[in-house]
């Protein structure tokens, strides 16, 4: 690696970038297979009940169509994640609006429209549950008619589930009994006790490319199903492989999945492809042709996963100097109708609920409740944005109660190097939140603005304010998760060109997977970036390096790529005379020599490594103690807002994001990740409301689901610090999700600074701000009072004319 400038920390062009700017990148809807049919999904129009009848009227010739119902499923009628409670197709019982009931396929898309219109379904509705509170109330009342989900031995949910509740956790900062006693003392001795409740709404991932797949089913000479193959837009091909093995009762090597160019995902294509992929494969099975299913925007928004809504309650004890003595935190999530990923989202929410602070005594209780809404799922942040919104809003409230500035309260309570987290994880790395706070407040001009706005706000109709949020984000899977995943990475070289192929199941969907993994390999191998590529993610060809989630790709998979590269170098040194140090030409010579003289058979040019923790990571799943994550990224985000008191619109006008991330592998990509995540976080805080009506998402169009445009977002200033972690290549930790954690609380803290009024719920719309300011004596009047059934400006009708 002598004369080439370091690739780590450089910004080489994206591997797939050229194809993207040319418009040549092929997404799933750009692909056609010969003889391909199209598929559609017939869905429930009620939230809960029984199907009384399904009638296929004779408006169409049904012999032209392939139809799949629950009883056609060759294996299990289950979409598997952690628990087997999620039907692939509803079989008599309905538990959410838009629940898939049957599937139809036809060579022509237009014929599918006719067919859907010709299917009449009648239901016997049952009372539905649509909020965390309604779900809890049913449990408290013991009202079995409103137990919409119950634990089931066969499904595997009996151990941890209870009526209407998918999962619960209890996290103690020490041994349970000692902690309870400590807490009791803390509250007794406290100079201040501060309580608060905070809530966050659902959020739609709104990838610009909707969900889509093309599936094929292959039969043997006897006509039995031999294998299935699904290609499509997705994050985790091996998750879909697993789902298909159950639906088709086939072994893994007969279920092939290929990820194609994916137009955005953000978690929305983590677990959901198991549903659409299984559906398309079933239709392919029925009709004997490849089947493409592409959702349109309305269907995708109405029927697929969203971010879990949350409610967090804090009760905090402090000394007269504003030192945290102890707290009780309760976190509740709305999981939707089936378990899917709720236990994991809840776990992350639980672990992030305490924020970046020292807690002598702490108890967190958390639960994921069932509702009759399409199951909620993964969305960038995965429980952490919800929990961190709670603690960071609460800390500003605490500061006020205690008579300290928000800044001073944090400084007195931040975790420091050498401290132990609430799960007992010792923080060895040399991070410094105190210094970071000083730095980012200065970058933003925070103190100067505080003073200036306090003066200007007295007379201006636009109230300005600043606020910040301090947080941490655990990278990688929780605790023993990475050990269980046991990820594998394979590198190989071409014996003539010496070009190297990185084989992983990690997918590219805009965040830069192909680029950074190639960078890491090229850097470690000491060869040009142009000599390295990543293989197409085809499960018949690549090893399972785990799902592309949890901000683990750079850190965990990157480290595996680094190790595999070193393994390759060692082999070349040992057998092919590769010198140390070496040039790229040396590498090529050694590879050629290896190919000619050393290699005995295929596979000899492949180098495989499996996950090994780079430092002790011990986690007790039962006690919920130990090393929760291999590494934490630390961050402080600052927002400046302007609240127009004529329109009650709050706008973020400047944003500073400072994060410590171990090592910035690719500055341009890293900046892009933070900026994009902050933009989504601003949407989460101020614009993006899912407007539900009895479980139906009424604003399932881009016109009415308000995502910020280029005209709405502030300048986003990104700052990095680097304290290298042993777990990632070059010291890198994960960064993909952390930018979602900061904007919500920072912006609401800023709005409180601007207006003097404290808001506790996001999304915070102008109607909510309006209602608080105008106190018209109505109990509501904020955005929860939108009449969801009236949309006279986008419900498009042919205009009437007078006779």
């Amino acid at each position: 690696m002598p004369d080439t400038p370091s690739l780590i920390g450089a910004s080489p062009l994206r591997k797939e970038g050229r194809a993207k700017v040319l418009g040549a990148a092929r997404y799933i809807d750009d692909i056609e297979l010969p003889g391909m049919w199209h598929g559609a999904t017939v869905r429930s129009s009620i939230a809960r009940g029984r199907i009384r009848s399904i009638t296929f009227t004779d408006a169409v010739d049904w012999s032209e169509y392939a139809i799949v119902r629950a009883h056609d499923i060759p294996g299990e009628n289950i979409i598997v994640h952690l628990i087997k409670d999620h039907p692939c197709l509803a079989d008599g019982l309905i538990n959410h609006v838009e629940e898939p009931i049957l599937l139809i396929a036809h060579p022509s898309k237009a014929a599918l429209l006719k067919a859907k219109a010709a299917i009449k379904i009648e239901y016997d509705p049952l009372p539905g549950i649509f909020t965390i509170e309604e779900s809890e109330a049913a449990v408290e009342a013991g009202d079995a008619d409103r137990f919409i989900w119950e634990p089931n031995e066969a499904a595997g949910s009996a151990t941890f589930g209870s009526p209407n509740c998918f999962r619960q956790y209890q996290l103690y900062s020490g041994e349970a009994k000692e902690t309870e006693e400590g807490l009791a003392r803390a509250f007794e001795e406290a100079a201040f006790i501060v309580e608060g409740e905070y809530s966050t709404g659902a959020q739609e991932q709104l990838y610009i490319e909707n969900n889509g797949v093309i599936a094929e089913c292959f039969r043997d000479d006897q006509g039995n199903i031999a294998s299935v193959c699904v290609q499509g837009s997705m994050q985790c091909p091996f998750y879909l492989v697993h789902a298909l093995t159950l639906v088709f009762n086939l072994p893994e090597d007969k279920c092939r999945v290929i990820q194609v160019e994916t137009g955005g995902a953000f978690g929305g294509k983590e677990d959901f492809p198991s549903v659409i992929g299984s559906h398309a494969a079933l239709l392919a099975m029925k009709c004997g042709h490849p089947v493409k299913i592409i959702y349109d925007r309305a269907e995708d928004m109405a029927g697929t996963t969203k971010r879990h809504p949350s409610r967090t309650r804090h009760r905090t004890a402090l000394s007269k100097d504003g030192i945290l003595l102890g707290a009780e935190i309760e976190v509740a999530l709305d999981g939707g109708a089936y378990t899917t990923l709720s236990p994991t989202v809840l776990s992350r929410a639980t672990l992030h609920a305490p924020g970046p602070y020292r807690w002598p005594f702490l108890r967190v209780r958390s639960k994921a409740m069932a509702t009759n809404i399409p199951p909620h799922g993964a969305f960038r942040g995965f429980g952490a944005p919800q929990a961190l919104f709670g603690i960071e809003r609460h800390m500003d409230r605490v500061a006020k109660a205690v008579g300290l500035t928000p800044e001073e309260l944090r400084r007195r309570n931040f975790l420091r190097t050498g401290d132990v987290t609430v799960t007992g994880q010792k923080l060895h790395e040399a991070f410094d939140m105190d210094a970071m706070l000083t730095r980012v407040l200065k970058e933003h001009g925070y103190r100067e603005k505080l003073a200036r706005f306090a003066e200007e706000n007295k007379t201006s109709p636009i109230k300005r304010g600043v606020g910040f949020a301090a947080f941490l984000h655990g990278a990688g899977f929780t605790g023993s998760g990475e050990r269980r995943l046991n990820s594998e990475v394979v590198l190989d070289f071409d014996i003539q060109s010496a070009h190297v192929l990185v084989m992983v199941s990690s997918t590219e969907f805009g965040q830069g997977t192909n680029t950074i993994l190639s960078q890491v390999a090229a850097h470690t191998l000491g060869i040009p970036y142009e000599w390295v590529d990543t293989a197409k993610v085809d499960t018949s060809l690549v090893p399972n390096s785990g799902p592309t989630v949890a901000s683990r790709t750079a850190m965990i998979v990157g480290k595996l790529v680094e190790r595999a590269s070193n393994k390759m170098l060692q082999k070349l040194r040992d057998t092919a005379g590769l010198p140390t140090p070496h040039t790229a030409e040396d590498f090529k010579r050694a590879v050629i020599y290896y190919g000619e003289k050393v290699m005995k058979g295929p596979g000899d040019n492949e180098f495989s490594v499996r996950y090994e923790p780079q430092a002790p990571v011990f986690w007790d799943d039962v006690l919920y103690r130990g090393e929760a994550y291999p590494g934490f990224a630390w961050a402080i985000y600052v927002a400046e807002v302007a609240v127009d008191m004529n329109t009650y619109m709050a706008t973020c006008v400047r944003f500073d994001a400072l994060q410590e991330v171990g090592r910035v592998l690719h500055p341009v990509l890293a900046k892009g990740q933070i900026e994009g995540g902050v933009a989504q976080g601003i949407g989460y805080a101020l614009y993006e409301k899912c407007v539900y009506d009895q479980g139906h998402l009424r604003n399932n169009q881009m016109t009415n689901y308000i995502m910020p445009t280029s005209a709405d977002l502030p300048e986003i200033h990104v700052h990095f610090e680097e304290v290298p972690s042993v777990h990632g290549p070059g010291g890198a930790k994960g960064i993909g999700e952390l930018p979602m954690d900061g904007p919500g609380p920072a912006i609401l803290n800023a709005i409180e600074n601007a207006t003097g009024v404290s808001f506790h719920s996001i999304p915070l719309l102008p109607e909510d701000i309006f209602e608080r300011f105008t106190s018209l004596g109505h109990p509501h009047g904020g955005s929860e009072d939108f009449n969801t059934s009236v949309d006279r400006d986008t419900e498009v009708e042919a205009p009437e004319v007078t006779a």
Partner: protein
Amino acid sequence: MRSDVTQYELTAPATLAAVLAQLAAEPGKHTPIAGGTELMVALGVGRLGAKSLLSINHLRELRFIRVDDDAIHIGAGTTFSDIRRNADIARDLPLLVQSASWTGSVANQNRGTLGGNICNASPAADTPPALLAYGATVTLISATGMRTMPYTEFHLGYKRTALRPDELLHTITVPRVFAGWKQHIRKVGTRNAQAISKTALACVAKLHGETITELRIGAASLADRPIRCYATEAALTGASLAASDLESTVRAGRAALAQEAKPIDDIRSTGRYRSIVAANLLEEFLRSLAG
């Protein structure tokens, strides 16, 4: 895409006369389509009931901006981009330029037409408030002739206009009398760009010293159609903006608007919010007049 496009007929008769002849021959059977930014959305969601469409997008006879001494005449087929580019409209009708600039995106402004915006008749439409405040007149054309009416008489109810089944909107005429008037327009949407109006107010006022001698207010989303706020205008005509009178003038204006406006709760906002925000916009205007 929820429609079968083979079930629709679309033809483009070569001239305006040919279109009008078709409309006359089979009234109510054909739906005119200009830029398509409304009707094609309906097609996409599977709600375009009209199966036979006549394209008027290409008709030169409808796409013009003519200026004479008294007025500016805008063809119904004029696009929002045409309006934004026109120097005469920029000089004389700034509120119309403003409202065209916040209608949808640049791509939609290149296709959407003033006539389409008016005839689609959404109460939230962006250009009607300015046209109402400016006292526009509209000319309707059919095979049997033309008729002109004040624009204030064009909107009859929710998405109902005075257009007969055999008629097209031909011209929107705005008098060139507003030099020296104070003009103000503001839209409150769900975000800064590409947003449907929650409410919007267009105001033009003539002052004599510190007294309002004439006032016109056009509003969006305060009723089932775009409206002139006549009662509010009446309450404020003759009102004084002098420092000692300003507060009571503002109060009178707000009270009148609160009575007159009947906004609803819908999927985007609430009636109370719209009502108060509209009053805030009015107050903002009045205070700006007081200087």
